[in-house]
């Protein structure tokens, strides 16, 4: 064999690489600009369906538009409701039915005029007509009207404790907009936020630019509440639907922020040598399985219970999120420390008992009908969990049929009770139980509606005292475990990443970029 001179080869390689880098530098030179940039590129999970924050409950729409529109109330870092456009928390009458709200003075709209109670009333009326959560609130509402120069009065039919939280949530937002801009669909986005809408090119970007006349609150910033300041001149929300691309882009320093990364990427982000900073949000959300109580094989409650016995939520979470660093397998729907923390019914959680489940199914009259699981691959963990659940159910003698569709189809099909028995989805963990999942309300897929549910929820919703509501939630949770309308699989942590250049960013369920800076 001929001897190969390794050293000369290496020199050759080095020359080649130097040459190549020179070319690359030349190419890159085209992009370098001498000015310090004052914009942030933010990689989002998808193209927003719409920029109308009332038309969609999608988190993405809320995430972007919360910079443009504001709400009367919002949440601080501890998930307490705090005022935003309202001057302070509302004055509630003794019977719990009348809410008096006073607006802050001198709040400027993007159109250059001051915000008035008429804007607020028109906006909330639109919200109650169009937004799913707004419609739920509308059922409780008696009247809403302006009162004086800065006042708004809401009168309810009966006490409804979640009202202020409903008004505060950034998803399906009760956004306050300029009255004259209200139209369906929205043609212009006139709000009060620290950023105003600049340009949208679908599948390319949504540009928001600093609103110079923004009137900020005086309180120090906390969570979504307090002082907001648009330190970055332009926010560029870029849709990057491929999770892997978001990871690679974050690692390559292409994005200042990359939303919702697969948790598996954490170690890579940690090892990126400072190119990217991982942001882990504990108890970010919960996956849940909705069971069809209206039609099909699992309309039988006893069979739903048998399925609950069959599955092992812990193993499912492991399949969905890999490492125990990224999930918590516990039956309590709200984490320890939350006022709604309760262990009621949690003995039903994570049993994974095939034999017991088989016996229970037999007793329930199960005759080997196929259980149809509807899931999508849009969210990888949905699919992985569904796959594992199917295996667990097969072990307990169930016949399982996987129905894997794209997310758009799933969202559509789940509205038809004939098409599925179980579907997989997830939600953020919110401070107010009524905000999610929608199965706690009326008419959501699954169509859970039993006397036990109505009784437990009526008691919970009509109790205005937060301390007492905590205990009442335990009763609701117990009913959920008894009747199995949905199964809360556990809690998972969210992972996102930011560039080292993005400073003063505060992690949040709906990431926001006021107060953040670009170095």
């Amino acid at each position, binding site marked *: 064999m001929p001897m190969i001179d390794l050293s000369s080869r290496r020199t050759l390689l080095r020359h080649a690489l130097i040459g190549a880098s020179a070319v690359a530098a030349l190419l890159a030179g085209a992009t370098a600009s001498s000015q310090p940039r004052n914009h942030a590129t933010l990689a989002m999970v998808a193209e927003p369906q719409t920029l109308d924050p009332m*038309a969609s409950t999608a988190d993405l729409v809320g995430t972007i538009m919360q910079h443009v529109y504001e709400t009367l109330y919002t949440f601080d870092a501890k998930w307490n409701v705090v005022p935003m456009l309202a001057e302070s928390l509302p004055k509630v009458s003794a019977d719990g039915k009348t809410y008096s709200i006073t607006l802050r003075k001198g709040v400027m709209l993007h159109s250059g005029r001051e915000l008035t109670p008429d804007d607020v009333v028109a906006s909330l009326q639109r919200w109650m007509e169009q937004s799913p959560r707004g419609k739920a609130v509308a059922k409780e509402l008696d009247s809403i009207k302006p009162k004086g120069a800065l006042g708004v009065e809401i009168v309810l039919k009966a006490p409804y404790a979640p009202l202020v939280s409903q008004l505060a949530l950034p998803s399906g937002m009760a956004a306050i907009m300029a009255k004259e801009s209200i139209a369906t669909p929205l043609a212009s986005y006139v709000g009060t936020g620290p950023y105003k809408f600049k340009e949208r*090119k679908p599948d390319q970007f949504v540009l928001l630019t600093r609103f110079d006349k923004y009137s900020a609150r005086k309180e120090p910033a906390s969570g979504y509440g307090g002082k907001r300041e648009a330190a970055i001149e332009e926010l560029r929300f870029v849709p*990057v639907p491929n999770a892997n691309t978001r990871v690679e882009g974050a690692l390559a*320093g292409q994005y200042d922020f990359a939303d919702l990364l697969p948790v598996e990427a954490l170690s890579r982000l940690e090892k990126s040598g400072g190119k990217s900073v991982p942001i882990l949000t504990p108890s970010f959300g919960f996956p849940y399985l909705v069971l069809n109580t209206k039609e099909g094989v699992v309309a039988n409650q006893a069979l739903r219970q048998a399925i609950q016995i069959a599955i092992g939520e812990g193993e499912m979470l492991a399949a969905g999120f890999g490492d125990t660093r990224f999930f918590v397998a516990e039956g309590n729907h709200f984490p320890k420390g939350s006022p709604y923390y309760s262990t009621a019914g949690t003995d039903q959680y994570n049993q994974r008992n095939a034999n017991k489940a088989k016996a229970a199914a037999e007793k329930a009259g199960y005759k080997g009908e196929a259980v149809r699981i509807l899931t999508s691959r849009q969210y990888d963990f949905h699919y992985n969990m569904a796959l594992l659940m199917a295996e667990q159910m097969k072990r307990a003698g169930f016949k399982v049929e996987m129905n894997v569709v794209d997310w*758009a189809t799933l969202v559509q099909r789940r509205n038809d009770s004939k098409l599925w028995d179980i579907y997989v989805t997830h939600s953020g963990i919110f401070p107010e139980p009524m905000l999610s999942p929608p199965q706690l309300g009326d008419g959501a897929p699954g169509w859970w509606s039993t006397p036990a549910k109505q009784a437990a929820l009526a008691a919970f919703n009509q109790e205005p005292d937060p301390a007492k509501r905590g205990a009442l939630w335990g009763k609701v949770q117990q009913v959920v475990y008894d009747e199995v309308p949905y199964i809360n699989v556990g809690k998972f942590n969210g992972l996102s990443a930011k560039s080292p250049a993005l400073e003063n960013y505060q992690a949040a369920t709906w990431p926001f970029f006021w107060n953040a800076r670009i170095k």
Partner: protein
Amino acid sequence: MRKFLLSKALGMLAVLAIVAVIVFVLTRAASGDPISVLLGDQATAEDIARVQKVYGLDKPLPVQFAYWLREVLHGNLGDSIFLQRPVTQALRERAEPTTLLALMAVAIAAAIGIPCGIVSAVFRGRWIDQLFTGVAMLGASIPSFWLGLVLIQIFAVSFGWFPVSGYGAPDAALAERVHALVLPAAVLGLLNSALIIRFTRASMLDVLGEDYVRTARSKGLAESTVVLKHALRNALVPIVTVVGLTVALMIGGAVVTETVFGLPGVGNLVVSAVLRRDYPVIQGALLVVAAIYVLINFSIDLLYAVVDPRVKVG
């Protein structure tokens, strides 16, 4: 000549008409519902019915087709349900990256494919021919997303020479756009060069076997003159045809590459429209992409008639 043009033009119109019918039937046969996606998880049946009416989705199919065709002939491809803007506008916005990508990719493909094809043909049966033919076949066997992922890993992630994804910043200059297109164009170019190598080789082999090449040799011309002047010029017409059609096919055919590299092009638009059940966009894009193909094909026919002295016309 006029008769030739007329028959070609009629044929083209027939094809376009069939394309229109196919496109309409395809998209209206779809099962998904765009309205639920648009309205989100908690929309009611009435909401859905109301919006369906707005977009004319409640009428019988032939009526929808007639309505649609009339509008199409007026240059109106309808409004995107999801993007809430005219389809023509959406397509125009996506045209630039796709066109640029197609041109760059074809330039790369031709720059690799034509010389390699010529060399392969001239040295037919030798090791270099086998090497190029083998490489060409390998190129035609690699899934584009696979090559894309590999190139991203090497040149974007490890070396950081190119962006991982996207089409540059919103206010980017052309140079930055081109820079962002280098990797995707390389993927498409490399894979498509396989076709061009193969085609150039075949075309050159045909020509090299022609009598006039022997005549050229009999004049004592150098082999390079024989190949480049006498053979290549004759082989070039079909090669250019293939190159032209490759451009046409890449407009909308670079779906996977555009997706891998997150390019806001026409292919990407169609994929997302399919996932969003955005019928007007699917219809419009399929129609426009196919029409471009048909038109490029037609212009190549015309060009043939004009350029090639041998085409007998009339």
